[in-house]
C-alpha cells in the first residue's frame, strides 16, 4: 500500500509521525475473516465466520476460551492469536491460583496491550498481526474490548473486525443502543445477523459460523450447531429477506457441510 523508505523497521518513525510497520500489522487484521462481539449488561456474545483453506480441510479456530469468565475472538494471523490466547490463559490461571478469584477482564486487557506495545518498540521484534475481541466479566458486569497490534485497546458495546466487517459494523451501529438491556437470546440473534452481513449474499448456515457466549451466571461455552441453526431458522426464510423476525417457517435446515459452501451458490428453495 504505502511502499516508502520509512517502513522497513518498526523502530523507524516516518516524518509525519507514523510507525508504518504497526499500520501494516493492522492491515493483516483486516485481511482475516470476520469476528464480531457484542455485549449486554450481563452477557457477551462472540461470533465468527468459519474460513477453511479448502473443502478438504477443517476450519480455523478463531474463538478461544481463556477462563470461565473470559473468551477471545481473533482476526488476522491465527498463529499469533493462538500464542496470545495462551498468554491470556496463563495470566488468568496464575491470578486464580494466587487470589482464588477470577481475573477482572479489564486488567487482562491492559496486560495484553502492554505486551503488544513492547513489540512496537524493539528492533528485533515485530508487532503481533492479530486483532483480539476480548469479552469477559469483572465486578461491574460484562465488558467487550478490542486489542490492536498497536498496543491500543478500546472498550465497545459491539464491534466487528476482519474482512467485510464494515457491513457488520453498520448493522451493529444501527442497533447497539438497545444491546445493554437485551436478553441473552436477542443478543445471540443480533450476533448471528451481524455475521450474516459479512457474508454479503452467501447463504447463512450454522456450519459457516461459530458462536460463543458468556454471562454473569453462565460460564464461557460454545453454542452447538443445532442451537445456531434454530436461531438462523427464525429469520432466514428466503435468502434475500433482511429483517425476518417472524416465527419459524419450516426452514429446511441444510445438512451441515464442512468448510462452508462457495460464493457461487444458487439460492435454494427453503420453503
Amino acid at each position, binding site marked *: 500500500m504505502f511502499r516508502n523508505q520509512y517502513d522497513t523497521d518498526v523502530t523507524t518513525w516516518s516524518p509525519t509521525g507514523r510507525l508504518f510497520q504497526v499500520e501494516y500489522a493492522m492491515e493483516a487484521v483486516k485481511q482475516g475473516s470476520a469476528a464480531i462481539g457484542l455485549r449486554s449488561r450481563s452477557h457477551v456474545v462472540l461470533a465468527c465466520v468459519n474460513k477453511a483453506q479448502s473443502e478438504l480441510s477443517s476450519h480455523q479456530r478463531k474463538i478461544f476460551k481463556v477462563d470461565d469468565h473470559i473468551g477471545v475472538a481473533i482476526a488476522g494471523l491465527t498463529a499469533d492469536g493462538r500464542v496470545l490466547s495462551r498468554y491470556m490463559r496463563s495470566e488468568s490461571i496464575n491470578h486464580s491460583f494466587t*487470589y482464588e478469584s477470577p481475573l477482572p477482564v479489564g486488567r487482562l486487557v491492559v496486560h495484553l496491550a502492554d505486551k503488544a506495545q513492547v513489540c512496537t518498540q524493539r528492533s528485533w521484534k515485530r508487532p503481533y498481526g492479530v486483532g483480539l475481541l476480548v469479552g469477559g466479566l469483572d465486578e461491574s458486569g460484562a465488558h467487550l474490548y478490542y486489542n490492536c497490534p498497536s498496543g491500543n485497546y478500546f472498550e465497545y458495546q459491539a464491534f466487528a473486525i476482519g474482512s467485510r466487517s464494515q457491513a457488520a459494523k453498520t448493522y451493529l451501529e444501527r442497533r447497539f443502543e438497545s444491546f445493554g438491556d437485551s436478553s441473552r437470546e436477542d443478543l445471540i440473534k443480533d450476533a448471528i445477523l451481524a455475521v450474516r452481513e459479512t457474508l454479503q449474499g452467501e447463504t447463512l448456515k450454522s456450519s459457516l459460523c461459530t458462536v460463543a457466549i458468556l454471562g454473569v451466571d453462565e460460564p464461557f461455552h460454545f453454542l452447538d450447531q443445532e442451537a445456531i441453526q434454530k436461531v438462523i431458522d427464525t429469520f432466514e426464510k428466503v435468502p434475500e429477506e433482511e429483517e425476518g423476525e417472524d416465527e419459524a417457517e419450516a426452514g429446511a435446515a441444510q445438512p451441515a457441510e464442512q468448510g462452508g459452501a462457495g460464493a457461487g451458490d444458487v439460492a435454494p428453495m427453503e420453503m
Partner: protein
Amino acid sequence: MTFTIQIENGTEVRNAEADSQRTLYPYVTGTSVVAIKYKDGILMASDMGGSYGSTLRYKNVERMKAIGKHSLLGASGEISDFQEILRYLDELTLNDNMWDDGNSLGPKEVHNYLTRVMYNRRNKFNPLWNTLVLGGVKNGEKYLGMVSMIGVSFEDNHVATGFGNHLARPILRDEWREDLSFEEGVKLLEKCMRVLLYRDRSAINKLQIAKMTEEGVTVSEPYSLKTFWEFKAFTNPTVGAEGSWLYDN
C-alpha cells in the same frame, strides 16, 4: 548475592552465612488472636503484648491492622515478620488501587495471597513465623480465615491462634451463633480473652477489639478486663490436689 564461607568444623562443613539468612526461631512474639463472624461482619480481639521469650517486654503492640477497604488482619507469632507481611500487603493494595478500575481486593483474595506467601516461604525453609487471621466483609459477604506459618489455611465461623485454639475455641463452639449482635459478640470475645488472660502466661491485660463491617474497620482503644483472684482455691492451691497430704475436711 550471598557469598557462602565454608567453615570446616571437624568433619562437618557448614555454610555460615547461609544459616543466618533463614528464620530459625522467633524473638519477639504476640500471643493469641480470637475472631468471630457476627451479624454485621467480623469481630477480632487480641492483646497488645510483645513477649521477648518469657519477658513481657512490649506492652503497646497493635497486632491487628486494616488491609484495603474490606479486610482486617490479625497476627500472632514473630512481630517483625508481621510487619514484613504488612509491607507486602501495602504493596499489594497500592497496586490494586493504582488500577483505579472499580475492582478491589476482597478478603478472600488477600487470604489466598497470604496462603501462597506463607506456603512458599515454608517450602524454602525460611518461614514467616506467624499465624494470621484474616477477616472481612465485601458486598455483604462475611469472610473469616486463618493461615499458619506452614501454609495451612482454612475458613471458619470462628478462629483463634496459639493458646486461643485450646482455650477459646471450645467456648466458641458452644456459644457462637450466626446472628450474634455486636454487644453479644463483644461479650463472647471478652469471655474468651479473660480465660486466656488467666491461663496464658504471655497474655497481658490490655486488649483491643476490632470490628469489620461493610462500612469499614474500627479498632477500639486499648482497655483492660476485670479479673478476680480471690477464689478460695487460689489461697491454698494444693488443697485436695492429687498426691497432696492437704485436705479440706
